[in-house]
């Protein structure tokens, strides 16, 4: 009797232990799969980009020609468009996000805080294609008929800065894409800023108030320096988004492979070029050039996102230590 029980127990324990091994291995493999996925993405991009990189070498990055007819491809145009639209987006989104974060952490009555931050964060859940059609059918006409003519006639004649606002008002182009991107990255930047502002130790703020500081003094001279790394991390996270955003930009960028100083001119970005041309690309070199653009975009966003994450990670650890 006793011996039978003992045996059954042993069988049971052994099967439990075996199940444990299986489960543990399954979770480990899944975790390793995350790494394999990234490695796979990098390998696939390099594999696809290889013919173009072999043909054009490093000149691919700086080449200004993009001509499927003569099979000559250079990434300078899309690269320029990607960088300029993202910078415009940051120029608009960073001050707005800062304002929103300050409003939500300092000014806002507490009963309004929940609804307003939900509203701002809902901006992040609108699909990017909706931003695209909104940009094309609503924003672009407004820019074309009112904002851009004003810019051309009033800012255009000014020295230096005027160069940015030349040419006819197309409605679509670098500026429009930049504005749409700004709206899209706004919720991301403002939510990171809000989180890091909230992490600022109350004792520091109270000490400043005790010295007679105004609320603004506390925000600007105490909270800001304390959370600088986090704020920069949040901005770079937004930049990472803006660089890689595809559909919204594809609608409003105008798809022209050229570099012009005017922000009102149609242009293209890396992601828009891939989205527009990939399924229509005939010829191996053409497809490969688009893969090379993808690789370039990946390297660019990887650097930006990785440094953003490192900054935020360090802040998280610091926050725990300080708390």
């Amino acid at each position, binding site marked *: 009797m006793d011996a039978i029980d003992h045996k059954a127990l042993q069988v049971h324990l052994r099967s439990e232990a075996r*199940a444990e091994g299986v489960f543990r291995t399954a979770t*480990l493999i*899944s975790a390793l799969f995350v790494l394999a996925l990234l490695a796979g993405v990098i390998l696939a991009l390099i594999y696809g980009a290889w013919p173009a990189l072999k043909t054009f070498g490093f000149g691919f990055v700086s080449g200004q020609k993009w001509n499927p007819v003569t099979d000559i491809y250079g990434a300078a145009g899309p690269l320029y468009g990607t960088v300029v639209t993202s910078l415009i987006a940051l120029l608009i989104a960073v001050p707005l996000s800062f304002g929103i974060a300050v*409003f939500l952490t300092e000014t806002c009555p507490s009963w309004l805080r929940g609804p307003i931050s939900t509203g701002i964060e809902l901006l992040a859940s609108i699909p990017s294609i909706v931003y695209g059609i909104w940009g094309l059918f609503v924003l672009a006409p407004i820019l074309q008929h009112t904002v851009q003519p004003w810019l051309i006639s009033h800012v255009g004649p000014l020295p230096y800065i005027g160069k940015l606002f030349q040419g006819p008002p197309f409605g679509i182009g670098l500026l429009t894409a930049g504005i749409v991107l700004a709206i899209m990255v706004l919720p991301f930047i403002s939510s990171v800023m809000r989180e890091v502002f909230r992490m600022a130790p109350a004792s520091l703020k109270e000490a400043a108030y005790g010295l007679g500081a105004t609320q603004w003094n506390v925000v600007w001279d105490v909270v800001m320096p304390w959370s600088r790394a986090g704020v920069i991390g949040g901005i770079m996270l937004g930049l990472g988004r803006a660089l890689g955003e595809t559909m919204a930009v594809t609608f409003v960028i105008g798809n022209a492979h050229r570099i012009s100083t005017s922000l009102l001119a149609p242009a293209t970005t890396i992601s828009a070029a891939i*989205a527009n041309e990939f399924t229509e690309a005939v010829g191996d070199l053409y497809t490969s050039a688009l893969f090379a653009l993808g690789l370039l975009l990946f390297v660019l966003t990887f650097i930006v996102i990785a440094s953003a994450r490192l900054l935020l990670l360090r802040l998280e650890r610091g926050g725990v230590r300080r708390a």
Partner: protein
Amino acid sequence: MSMLRRRRITNAIAFIASTIATAIGLALLCAILWTLLSNGFAAMSWTLFTQMTPAPGSHGGLLNAIYGSLAMTVLGILVGTPIGMLAGTYLAEYGRHSKLCTVVRFINDVLLSAPSIIIGLFVYTLVVLRMGHFSAIAGAVALGIIAMPVMVRTTEDMLNLVPKSMRDGSAGLGAQPWRTITQIIYPAARSGILTGLLLAIARVSGETAPLLFTALNNQFWTAKLNEPMANLPVVIFQFAMSPYPDWQHLAWAGALLITGFVLILSIIARSISTLFGQHANPGE
């Protein structure tokens, strides 16, 4: 006195500016939603759900695109969610602070914000080139890859919220970790994991770029997974960019459908997480 006044004025200006910034943000949300609602409802009709996408100039609906989107989203979630959940479990329960976990966590964060069009290129190389043609399977794989990092992140966060004493109690009764995890910790973190799942679905259902060169599009009805399949985002893209008013109306209606679906999912996810006092970070 004058310095105090200046500081007070700066203070007032700064806070008025911050209020204006918030008002601009909310106004933009309202503007976008308003455009979507007014154009979308104008184009809404029952034929959307009963007819196929039309040729230019004739009437039709979005039935094949709605079906395609649902099929690929469900498949993608079925592929991506279990792997993501298991990986998140490893990070929270087994590896915790090991070097491997730090690296996996970091790479997962990178995947979370990597441009989705890159995932499209990857799946094109992996699946489309192998099969020799575009297919719904490729689309589902792409969506699965995008859903996975969301699940990894939320699963880990939610499992970490489960008190350690529950694990100790279970271990004290002689349970192996896998029993503790599947029978104690998963049920305890149920609402949080559900939130993550909803967020993953929301994230995936609006994706367009990775479907452009995986599932492509299809003018006609197909239920075969190894053929190109219509889907709402790509149809919206194609129809909105077209010069035909009929197609543009359908694009608005489709955009309203997707946005409504995604917003409802995010609001449900949000209320689940506040209801159960757990904090999910939807954006990142």
